[in-house]
């Protein structure tokens, strides 16, 4: 008995999940629903990484995207009041224009990409962590340090942006 049919089936299910989630994020009016479906897309994407044999990347994907970024975005949704009327969420004039533009660029690229990369399957098997660690800490040591500087800049910038407002608000409260 062989289980060769499993991989294409799993791939098909995951790709439907990824694309349906992505389309839902674009189409849905309710932001919380969009955020949750974005998390769903990320989870399906993690499944694809597992299918490709990149288990470490899949774990990082869930850790960063589902665990951190989605929560951050949900926080952002909660701190802003959004309009619930459906038409308020879309540009009115640009919509057909954008659709035509994206379709014109996307369709050829998708077709070319699909047809040009046939051939041997990716190598599953997992165990990509040692290779990853070696690359990051030897060849990519400098980008690695730059990454920390980038994170520091993001941290400082975001704190400045949110803190300034807190002080202003506190000052306003004191004046009142």
């Amino acid at each position: 008995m062989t289980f060769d049919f499993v991989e294409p089936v799993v791939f098909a299910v995951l790709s439907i999940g990824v694309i349906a989630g992505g389309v839902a994020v674009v189409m849905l009016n309710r932001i919380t629903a969009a955020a949750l479906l974005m998390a769903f897309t990320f989870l399906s994407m993690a499944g694809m990484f597992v299918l490709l044999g990149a288990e470490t990347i899949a774990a990082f994907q869930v850790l960063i995207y589902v665990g951190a970024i989605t929560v951050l975005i949900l926080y952002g949704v909660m701190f802003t009041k959004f309009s619930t009327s459906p038409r308020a969420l879309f540009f009115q004039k640009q919509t057909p224009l954008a659709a035509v533009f994206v379709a014109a660029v996307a369709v050829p690229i998708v077709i070319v990409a699909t047809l040009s990369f046939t051939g041997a399957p990716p190598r599953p098997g997992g165990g990509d962590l040692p290779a990853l660690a070696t690359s990051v800490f030897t060849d990519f040591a400098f980008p690695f340090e730059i990454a920390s500087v980038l994170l520091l800049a993001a941290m400082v910038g975001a704190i400045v942006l949110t803190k300034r407002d807190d002080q202003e608000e506190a000052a306003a409260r004191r004046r009142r």
Partner: protein
Amino acid sequence: MPDYSLSYVYVFAFFVVGAIFVTLLLTLSRLVAPRKATKEKLRTYESGEEPTGQAWGRYPTHFYVFALLFVVFDVEVIFLFPWAVLFRSLGVAGLVEVIVFIGILVVGLYYAWKKDALNWY
């Protein structure tokens, strides 16, 4: 099937069993439990006070700083795990890199501390 695929089939099976289990429990409860909804019963519970307005609105942004710091340190962690597994073969160079990395992020933590962003009002 290779061992690798099998492991993740197991992981997936655990998730599916969890979902099925929750659904079963809730269905069982739905079959057994009475359902007599009244208008008063379905009102939002606000400690016995009259509920006023919706809860969805603006909340102060100091919550946000913690989420932000969490994201930054979470990203730090994804570098620490590969390093922790291989740090014996990476040797002193890897250790120095990671210490510099942690050091730069600790500067950010110190900045948040001094900016009074680590206080929850």
